[in-house]
């Protein structure tokens, strides 16, 4: 038995939606960060599935670029979060409001 393309796309879409909701609804910066990664991985899953079912290699190659970029983003993001925590002693977005007025 093989799993159809629709199942992969459904899972990828669900993961993407969970990630998007996490970014929009959660207040902790670290969890927002994890949700962003979840969105990128949903994209990776869809790319690999499409690549397999369409019989082209571009999707598989694209995944490597996305993984690399995601790693760069995480490294930078954690550095910024740590620096901000040292100054403000908080990582909750609803307390980081010195700019919004």
């Amino acid at each position, binding site marked *: 038995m093989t799993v159809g393309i629709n199942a992969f*796309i459904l899972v*990828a879409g669900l993961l*993407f939606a969970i*990630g*998007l909701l996490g*970014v929009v609804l959660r207040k902790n*910066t670290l969890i*927002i*960060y994890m949700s*962003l990664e979840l*969105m*990128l991985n*949903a*994209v990776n899953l*869809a*790319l690999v*599935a*499409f690549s397999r*079912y*369409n*019989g*082209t290699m*571009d*999707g598989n*190659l*694209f995944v490597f*670029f*996305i993984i690399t*970029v995601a790693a*760069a*983003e995480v490294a*930078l*993001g954690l550095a*910024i*979060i740590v*620096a*901000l925590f040292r*100054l*403000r002693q908080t990582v909750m977005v609803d307390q*980081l409001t*010195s*700019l*919004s007025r």
Partner: protein
Amino acid sequence: MNELLIEFLSGFTATNEWAAILPEILLGVLALGLLGAEMALPRSQQTRWIPRLAVWGQVIVLVLAFTCAGCCSFDQREYFSGLIAQNDVTQLMRGFFLLSSLAVCYLGKVYFVRQSALPKTEFYALVLIISAAMMLLVQSAHFVMLFVALETVTVAFYVLVAYNRRSQFSLEAGLKYLILGALSSGILLFGIVLLYGIAGSPELVASSHDSLNYTQLMHFVIPNMDNLIVKIGALLVIAGVCFKIGAVPFQIWVPDVYQGAPTPVTAYLAVASKAAGFIVLIQLVSGPFFGLQDFLVPVLSVIAAATILFGNIAAVTQRNVKRLMGLSGIAHAGYLLLGVVALMRGVDWAVYAVIFYLFTYLLASFAVFGVMSLSAAADDAIQELDHYQNFARKHPFLGGVLACGLGSLAGIPPLGGFIGKLFLFVAAFQASLYGLLIIAVIGVVISIYYYFGWIRESYFSAPSTEVVNEAACPSTAGDRFLLGAFTVASVVVGLLPAALPIIR
């Protein structure tokens, strides 16, 4: 077997003409060279030589890019098996990005006079890398190339926005830009994946093996324009790009990030990052999404109208000048969207109107941001309108530059901004977008109110007996030359639009 492989590879490498991207390579080498120079030079010499190396290196690259035969041809060409496409638009924009990174490096030098505790070399290196990546971004003709170049730009911008790590404003702006930038990249990527999957699907007509390529995708989209997944994919890609240009449903990051970022970085974001986003948008709507015009024109028209109104109305009550520049920048994005919509309605020269407007916006914005960098206090994020009371009396030259820059942004006749807006509005008129035109004109009238509020503050506020403190705002001969050049260029472009050889 081996011969077959060699033949196969040589077919792919036949279009690898490295000379075509010589300016980008030179910029990358220059950026690495700066990091090397930091190690080689003694500490006392660094502050003197590294900014000079960055600025003069870019001048050399700029001269090379527009004189050497390999990279100044305006013909339509493709390189690297369709990853990169060059035409007159991309060549003009390469000059645009080099000019803006040159100005940003200069403003960075001014900024570091006040923030002397910060590391300096990395700033110039990152500005150069962003410039090279934006040049590649506008030339990309393939979604992988687009994504990699775009992420190089955004990841480097995360660092630059949060550059002042001793300031909570800068770090908070960096975090906000990081979260929303990564979110927009995710949305853009999901759109790309949907398009890749549907365009490669063998059951559909005109499906392609190279479905991430713009041209192949265009040939696929035209017969399949009623496909739901194609529409969703295109919408998600457009949404991701709209984040970068700060168009209305996705504009929440703009005021905060513009306020918190160091002033030269704000200028870079406002001018070059927005310009890159617009050129990408233009290439997408006239390339892969060409077949979806009936669907995208109403969407982009609504976004343009909302962007113009939101930017101008929110800027009216704003007292912080960096936020004011951010919000008015949203309004400028709205006027530029007007040009994009006109282009989609079949007015071909609208793309040149957009580029012309971007050039006038560059000249005016850097004049204003230059004055802001020179007059900023120790904390860069807190620059209120009240600080500009009697500004023109204390600093007649800077006051004049500020007035010219703001006048050009508002679109006052003898200045460049007026001609830029005129071209865009004529393009919209030819595309019979009368409703949008009325909204744009209302927007311009509102913008005159707040821009002139700033000019009034600097020229006509109640004269005070305060002692003129020249030391608080020193401007060297170089500063005066650069700001004077921007102002003169604004006036010249306004009087003689043909001085910019863009609309032919």
